[in-house]
């Protein structure tokens, strides 16, 4: 099943029954339905689907206002870039609300499409999901796998409180990765899909497919990997990864965000202070002079070089 088909299916299942739910966003119920993200939505008669105005800033405030008045809502957004217009609300309105409501009864979720599929140009290629979460310590989740789609959409899309759930435009037409979860922490911000003794792979932002590919290739060479996906920027207890790295002594950290402030730096710093690592491979974007032009957005990984660097016989 394609990534977008599965994500859409989970959304449809989750929104169809709740009462007094408001789904809104530009063209979410018209045309391509945001490339299929919101295709075929149907809701309880007491709920409402709104093809909204092009007013991203106000639509963010709108969602918070609904939340204040006891109504849950989801704002489906065509591009993460547009959320820049709503930063005031992500920070100031959210801070205001959570400082006065300890136990929210309703939810507000923004679900943007992270435009990481390349060739979009300088104004439509922002993939720094963690930056949005970092700015006001906002719970945020990226969806990379089938398990994450099911978990995050069914348990967090309409759950009291506020969060952002990002989906990857690059993955829309790809087969969704169907890997079983073997461990996850309490808030699903750290999810482990594989446990191997030779190397630890930790993926940030939307880099899990890259890490998964590395794992598959290493497997062909009989190198067994542990792989973790960090789905959020919520302050994470790194102990599980630390434990794993103490066994493998080798780590590959991947972060495909274009931000200058990478979420992975936090883990790197933690590991540096807490264990001895024989080999540490950090895969980050190399920002070239043409990064503002319409170019491929793919992070190119030299598998052979990685394998050779690990010095695993």
């Amino acid at each position, binding site marked *: 099943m394609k990534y977008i088909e599965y994500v859409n299916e989970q959304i449809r299942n989750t929104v169809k029954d709740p009462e*007094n739910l*408001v789904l809104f966003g530009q063209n979410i119920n018209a045309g391509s339905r945001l490339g299929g993200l919101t295709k075929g939505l149907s809701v309880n008669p*007491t*709920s*409402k689907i*709104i093809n*909204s*105005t092009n*007013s991203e*800033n*106000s*639509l*963010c*405030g*709108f*969602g*918070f*206002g*609904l*939340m*204040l*008045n*006891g*109504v849950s*809502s989801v704002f489906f957004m065509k591009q993460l870039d547009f959320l820049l217009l709503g930063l*005031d*609300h992500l920070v*100031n*309105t959210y801070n*205001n*609300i959570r*400082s*006065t409501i300890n136990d929210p009864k309703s939810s507000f979720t923004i679900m943007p499409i992270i435009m990481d599929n390349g060739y979009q140009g300088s104004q439509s290629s922002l993939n720094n999901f963690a930056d949005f979460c970092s700015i006001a310590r906002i719970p945020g989740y990226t969806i990379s796998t089938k398990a994450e789609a099911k978990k995050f959409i069914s348990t967090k899309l309409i759950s009291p409180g506020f969060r952002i759930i990002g989906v990857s435009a690059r993955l829309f037409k790809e087969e969704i990765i169907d890997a079983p979860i073997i461990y996850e922490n309490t808030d699903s911000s750290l999810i482990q899909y594989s446990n191997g003794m030779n190397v630890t792979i930790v993926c940030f932002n939307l880099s899990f497919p890259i890490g998964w590919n590395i794992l598959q290739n290493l497997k062909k060479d009989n190198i067994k990997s542990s792989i973790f996906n960090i789905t959020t920027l919520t302050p994470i207890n790194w102990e599980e990864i630390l434990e794993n790295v103490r066994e493998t002594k080798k780590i590959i950290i991947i972060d495909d965000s274009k931000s200058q402030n990478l979420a992975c730096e936090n883990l790197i710093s933690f590991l540096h202070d807490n264990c001895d690592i024989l080999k540490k491979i950090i895969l980050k974007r190399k920002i070239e002079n043409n990064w503002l032009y319409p170019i491929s957005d793919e992070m190119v990984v030299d598998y052979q070089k990685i394998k050779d660097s690990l010095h695993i016989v």
Partner: protein
Amino acid sequence: MRKDEKIFFLMGDTGYNLVEPLFEEFPDRTLNVGVAEQNMIGIAAGLCNMGFKPVCYAISQFLTQRSYEQVRNDLCFHDYPVTLVGTSTGLDNGPLWATHYVVDDIGCLKTLPNIHIYSPSSTESMEKIFNETMNLSHPSYIRITKSSFSESKTIEGVNRFILENENSDTLVISHGRMIKNSLDAARIFPGFSIFAMDRIKPVDDSIADIIKNYTNLVIIEDNFKSGLYSTICQFVAEKKINGKYLYSISVDEDFGAITGDTSFLHNKFGLSADQISNFIKKLTGDASIGVPAVIGKNIVEKILRIRLSQMLINEDYKKSKFKIPIHLAFGHESIATAVSQIMNKNDKLVLSHRNVAYNLARLGKLKPILDAYYLKSSGLTDGKTGSMNLINREKGIFYTSSILGNNFSVSTGIAMGEKIRSQEGITIILAGDGAIEEGSFHESLLLLKSLELSALVIIENNEWSMSTKINERRHSINLEKFAEASAIKYVKLSGNNPIQYIEKLDDLKQFSLKEKTPVLIEVMVATLGSRILKTPELPDGQLINYHAGPAPTINLEKDNPKIIDDISDPIFVLEKHVGTKTIEEITKTLLKELNSEIK
């Protein structure tokens, strides 16, 4: 007539299908004088000379006004005990237009010596009054209306309590047909007592003991103010009864260009039960609509309380006692009170950083707000929000924002929540004129209109943004045109009359709820506390409007908290309506209360 053979019944060619039995039974003591009311009075005076007790029955305006000279010279001068029974009084003959309104009969007749004036409010009252007049040795006038209202009980006196509410400080004094309307009003809003003063002249001195138990005296009559209202005013003045607020619900002293049936005219002049109940709700602090502009004591107190509370905050502020920034709102008290007055329990208020007047208006107390400013856990929001984000959701203040324009969009969501949950509340958004420069102002109005949401968007225009006048930083914005572009109703308010504000806002609220549309309201305010700022760049000084921080030019050291002598100060407006002495008396009382509260 069976009991008293001196009674002689005269009529002015009216009362057919009613009086015939009298004529049949007493042919020697009945006479139809024809359409000749002046002559009828003369005949009655002559009959009096012969020892009879004449009763003259006719349509009232012909009996009292066409025959005024005869009533004065033939009856009152001689103090003849003739009973005049006038029919179709008040607005009974409304469809015949103003020539047939009988709304000035009481005023005309009560200037005449000796005459007694009655206005029976029920069939029981009619009987009692007639018996009384038959035993009088003076002329009398009984003003009867087309009503069959019965109290279904024996009444003790002509003047009497119809309804006594011991918990209310509002007394309706009325007579005739308006007693029934007042009773109906009490069924809608039972917050007042009703006293029937069916004997209007002579005034019963014992009503002084009744009046003393009430603060608000509302005189309701289907007559000009020259009727019972002026009688009560005179009585209160002559008896030196202090501390009373008198209000009149009566027929406008204007014959008017339109007419209609009695019910229509009652509505036109605020005499219907709904209008009476709303009028009194307003006096007692509840929301109301469509009533004449009088400023009740409650409203005066509320506005003064907000002003004095701010002054007390300012005194602490000047001493640098607060760690947080506070934006005072001297000059915003009238609109804040009006907004608070029109709010029902489901209504939601969304404010800006300058929210102090609204928080004070909604809460009615200072201490929890002052404690919040001191960041004490005993304060509102447990002292966790500071001043610019101070909320009070129990009192309907759902959200406040210190970010210009931020609250517009949040309020759209709150309004949508009302719609989704099928609640009946309205969302009221307050922002300053600076906020309309933000894009979210346009976006939010568009959302409100597109989603058919009920909301009052109120822009407090003080023509300043921090230290800059509007015309120093931008081209003017025509809000009316702006609203028109999105087919949104626009209304401008100014003048700081709280009652006019309440009436208008409540009308607009009903409109917005009914039509499911936002309304844009621009209210002109002056944020008082300006000062001359001198800096190295401005050695001669420049006038700077108050924005935030203490207001050094405002001091709490006078008996009257008025800041300036023009209508931009709501206290000046109150003063013009209720007088300086009242302002000073209430100020003294409130200050004592407030100081005790925050001690």
